[in-house]
């Protein structure tokens, strides 16, 4: 544990040296501030940043994840020659990166939102869901990045695979959902759709946030079914479990491959 934290701290430090973790946080901060400066109310601002949260966080997390994995591989040899378990080095580097990115996002987006009138409990709850979703997405996509990079010698190939995965989850998956909806429009689809959405962490995050906002009313009967599901403790637990599983699965796949590979 102590060794892991040491590795994590070092990985975070290595990352902070680059200007871009700070600019990543700054990007969210400027964005949120601009929205408020143009007079958007917090609920509208959430809708406006939603797209960005859903596109930018996964993309940055997975790309930076792959690149930083290859960067750290160079001195991984130094670490692995020390009396440290490989899983410790892996988890340490994973945590160092995920926590840095998540912190940059949380502070960057959270500060302006907290500053501008999140007065009521309900609004604070929405902000919390937004931040939690972003944090989960960061952890999930860094895990994807590591799982890919561990198995791939060529960093360009790994980058390609990462971007493909991101495209698939961010765009293609929802396209397939639409195809399913169109093909089976004669059947009651709400429950199968619920299942399919839960399988994609980006859809889970998007819907969890949408349901907190009043645009959920536009979602009609489908929305009502979703709201009932995600409103229940069971549903919320299941959604949380799904997100957690999306962190755990690639992390385990990654650490497994990391423990077996040669350096």
């Amino acid at each position, binding site marked *: 544990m102590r060794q892991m934290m040491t590795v994590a701290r070092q990985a975070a430090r290595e990352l902070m040296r680059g200007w871009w973790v700070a600019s990543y946080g700054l990007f969210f901060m400027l964005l949120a501030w601009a929205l408020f400066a143009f007079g958007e109310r917090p609920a509208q601002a959430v809708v406006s940043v939603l797209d960005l949260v859903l596109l930018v966080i996964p993309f940055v997390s997975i790309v930076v994840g792959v690149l930083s994995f290859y960067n750290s591989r160079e001195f991984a040899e130094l670490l692995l020659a020390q009396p440290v378990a490989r899983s410790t080095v892996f988890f340490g580097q994973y945590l160092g990166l995920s926590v840095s990115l998540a912190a940059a996002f949380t502070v960057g987006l959270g500060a302006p939102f907290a500053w501008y009138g999140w007065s009521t409990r309900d609004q604070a709850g929405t902000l919390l869901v937004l931040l939690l979703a972003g944090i989960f997405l960061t952890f999930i996509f860094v895990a994807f990045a590591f799982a890919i990079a561990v198995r791939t010698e060529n960093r360009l190939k790994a980058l390609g695979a990462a971007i493909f995965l991101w495209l698939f989850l961010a*765009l293609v998956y929802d396209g397939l959902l*639409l195809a399913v909806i169109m093909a089976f429009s004669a059947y009651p689809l709400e429950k199968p759709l619920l299942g399919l959405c839960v399988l994609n962490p980006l859809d889970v995050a998007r819907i969890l946030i949408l349901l907190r906002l009043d645009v959920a009313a536009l979602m009609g009967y*489908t929305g009502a079914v979703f709201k009932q599901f995600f409103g229940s403790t069971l549903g919320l637990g299941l959604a949380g479990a799904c997100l957690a599983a999306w962190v755990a699965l690639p992390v385990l796949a990654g650490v497994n491959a990391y423990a077996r590979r040669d350096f």
Partner: protein
Amino acid sequence: MSMGRWLLGLIFPLFVMLALFAPSDATAGTQPAAPQGQAQRPTLVVCPTCEVKRLVDALREAPTGGRIVVQSGLYVEGEIVVDKPVEIVGQGWPVIDGAGKNQVLTVKADDVSISGLVIRNSAKSYLADLAGLRVEAARRCVIEGNRLIDNFFGIYLAASEDCVVRDNQVYGNATSEAFSGNGIHLWNSHHITLERNYVTGHRDGLYFEFLHASAVRHNVSEKNVRYGLHTMYSADNYYQSNLLRANLAGVVLMYSKRLRVIDNRFEDNWGAACYGALLKDLDDSELADNLFFHNSVALYAEDANRNFLTKNRFYNNGFAVRIMANADSNAFSGNVFEANAFDVTTNSSTQSANSFNGNYWDDYRGYDLDHDGIGDVPFWPVRLFGLLLEEYPAAIVLLRSPFAELLDTAEEAIPVLTPRNLADEKPLIARPSWSKSRVLKNASVQ
């Protein structure tokens, strides 16, 4: 609202009243004092400690055209029928209580005036439209400044004409749509003036069926279990400056024609299947200068034809306009579309016989090289995702998905599916200034 409109709002009803009640003089204010000119009228006073203790007794004794002053107290007298022209004036809010057993007050004569009463607890029934105050086949009635509390129907006018219903407050306790009555219900009547009433907690706040040539102004109808203002089989009515808030639908106009709906505000009709204005089989009508704010669907039009929709402001709605393919020859111009999730959706990808011209769209990205204030390229307000939604409602799970945005972007570049002729050929470049002031005004309301 402009000063001029305020003045009109005051002067016009006065004028109408003077015209209608010139011989019997007018009553003014919610608690009428004894106006001059009525001294010569025979007046009966009713109170629990008076000689006449019951309103029914007073009605029996009162001469035609007489005046009954009801002083404060509780009057539980069964169904009270007013069958001769009299003026009933409450002083100190006397309570006429139906005790949940019957209709409370029924007017069956012409030239009856009722004011200053609290009318409450009518019976409820699945079979009969029982009301707190019912007017049947009467002319020239004046219902003014009363409070109707917890009645099945509040004020119910049937087959009446030339009546004024003004400054009443109608509070219902309806919880279900199936077992509730309307706040102010006008049936088979004409030349009715309905103004400055407040209605809440009923099925439909204001319900009109076979209503003709009537004016409905400055009313507030909110938080009813169904609609704010519901019109069926009516024509030639004028709805102006009403506030319809937080109902399932603001106005529902069905099977009617030649209605003018001007300067009303429809807001917070928000939830699954909620509408600002729902038009079905509405023909030859005009909706102008209205504000649609924060409605799930601001304006829904089905089989509605030849209507003019002018200078309305659609702000922060889910769907601003949902217009079905069977709606024909409706003209949208000078409207402002701002901050809506969807500006226009329709269920047909082929053709639309409605025109959009000279509206302002906040999504418009065109340019204006000749600086005439009109965009040089048309604006197509129907998004592909919106079109898909009409056909596949379950696709709403993709709301705000990057994929949905991608679809719209692609469709914008290479249009295939969205109706090409549903276009605004002359989109405004700048938001018309008259609507700017209204934003501020309405923002302060919420």
